[in-house]
């Protein structure tokens, strides 16, 4: 039956204050939190630049700590060598681990355990990695009892086969940093590979490509940018590590290129100099911080520019 009753006119002028208040509050809180975070970051960076820029001199890059004027050439080189060793070990292992998790691991509890372990490792205080490498690689154990002893024994056999000496060394430092990198890179790689749409894999499989070919020629190139970002984050992270290096690379006041020797690094020098009573040394620590941050920044930018996608032509 057709109704001739017209509905009561809706009052669009009627204001509900509750929802408006909540959304206004949410917006204010989020904006304020973002502002605080940014402000803190700029205060820290600004303070560092202000304190550090005075010591920025050619001699900082060309001289050694015991020379006059003081410099940190050996520490800059040391940090680069340590990060390079760590990347050489950590990037392939981390990436392969991530590829395993995303592409080959069975779906089930074992994979969940691996993933959880990696997440825990990524959050483990990094000093632990220093202690472990110290125990296994740096010190020459007196006896080889227990399973730690067995690991030590094999580590020493591999070490002597590779011609790596015992004691504090660049190799030990690089290894400790590599252990820090592996879980970060593995999880980043896994996440990026999972983002590659199934349709790409299906298309490749449908053309007769094997799983490995699909992975190498389609999936990895598609995920490349994200994986590289993950690797850059990991490198930046270990370039700023201090604690594990105390147990492994230890530091050196002279110029060292040989990773079999004790290896200096910027972070360690920053720690040592910042504890000093001498204001001149403390100023050097600030300059070293500024140089370290700039190095990471320049390196990240360079890798991004070098690996970015060539611009898509649309005509």
């Amino acid at each position, binding site marked *: 039956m057709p109704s001739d009753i017209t509905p009561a006119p809706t009052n669009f002028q009627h204001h509900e204050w509750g929802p408006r208040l909540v959304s206004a509050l949410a917006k204010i809180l989020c904006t304020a939190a973002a502002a605080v975070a940014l402000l803190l970051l700029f205060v820290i960076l600004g303070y560092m630049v202000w304190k550090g820029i005075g010591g920025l001199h050619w001699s900082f890059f060309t001289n050694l700590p015991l020379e006059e004027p003081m410099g940190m050439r050996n520490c800059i080189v040391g940090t680069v060598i340590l990060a390079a060793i760590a990347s050489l070990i950590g990037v392939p292992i981390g990436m392969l681990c991530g590829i395993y998790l995303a592409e080959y691991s069975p779906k089930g509890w074992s994979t969940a355990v691996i993933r959880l372990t990696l997440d825990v490792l990524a959050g483990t205080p990094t000093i632990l990695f220093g202690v472990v490498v110290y125990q296994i690689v740096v010190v020459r154990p007196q006896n080889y009892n227990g399973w730690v002893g067995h690991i030590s024994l094999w580590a020493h056999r591999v070490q002597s086969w590779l011609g790596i000496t015992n004691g504090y060394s660049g190799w030990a430092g690089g290894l400790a940093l590599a252990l820090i990198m592996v879980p970060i890179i593995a999880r980043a790689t896994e996440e990026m590979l999972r983002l590659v*749409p199934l*349709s790409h894999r299906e298309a490749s499989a*449908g053309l007769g490509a*094997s799983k490995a070919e699909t992975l190498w020629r389609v999936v990895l*190139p598609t995920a490349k940018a994200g994986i590289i970002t993950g690797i850059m984050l990991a490198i930046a992270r270990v370039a700023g590590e201090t604690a594990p290096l105390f147990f492994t690379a230890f530091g050196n006041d002279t110029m060292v290129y040989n990773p079999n020797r004790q290896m200096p690094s910027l972070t360690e020098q920053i720690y040592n100099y910042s504890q000093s009573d001498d204001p001149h040394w403390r100023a050097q620590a600030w300059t070293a911080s500024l140089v370290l941050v700039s190095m990471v920044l320049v390196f990240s930018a360079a890798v991004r520019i070098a690996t970015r996608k060539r611009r898509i032509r*649309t*005509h």
Partner: protein
Amino acid sequence: MILADTSTDISQKAHGAGTHGLTGTVPVTTSATAARQAVEVQNLEVFYGQHRAVHNVNLKINHREVTAFIGPSGCGKSTILRCFNRMNDLVKHCRVQGSVKIHGADIYARGTDVMELRKRTGMVFQKPNPFPKSIHENVAYPLRIHGVRGKAVIAEKVEKSLRLAGLWDEVKDRLHASALSLSGGQQQRLCIARAIAVDPDVLLMDEPCSALDPIATKTIESLINELSKTITIVVVTHNMHQAVRVAHQTAFFYMGNLVETGPTDKIFHNPVQHQTLAYVTGQFG
């Protein structure tokens, strides 16, 4: 010709005069002699876990003809199509029983080279899925993975495939632009070019036009007609008019069963089964 049941040749009972308003532009195969079969399916059953998605399907697909698979969603038509190049291998808990022969060879036999099978049976998917690479690299990809080497050889084959797919004139000046810069219809034709680059015998198309506009659809349909001169094509479609326009033969599936199969004209104008009649006249879908 296609036979729903190997013992009965229903196409012999076929005789024209349609009354349902759908008129085919594709002539019914003239030769009634035993055409060479490209695909022969026997007692095919497909399970997803405990669920039986395909029930005892027997089917023959003629060489160098277009065969359409029609039926409502979930009737198993895509699943069957994906048995022909063993794409179902990629689906966990999917189990296939029975035999599928392509040009006489049982593709589910032990020791089958699945990579080679998929090279021989190209596939085009519902949604255009070009790789995020250049137009040229998309078509070169299957050539490279199947061992074709040499810049000139690859360039020549890429051009040939793009010409066959009717895309060459539109892209010849920007072969190194990203494939993702193409329109949807162009992307789908690129996928066809990619699939036919290694000269497959059979081309499987899983609702190739469902994501395209009518003009792009028309282009793809005439491409299907053109390609069927040299390649056997199986096309899954939701669109009954499309089946009428492109297919020589049509197979109607319902609830995992092959209900009826025969020349397209007969399926749409004079079907034997009442379910087929109900479906093609739009009484359910």
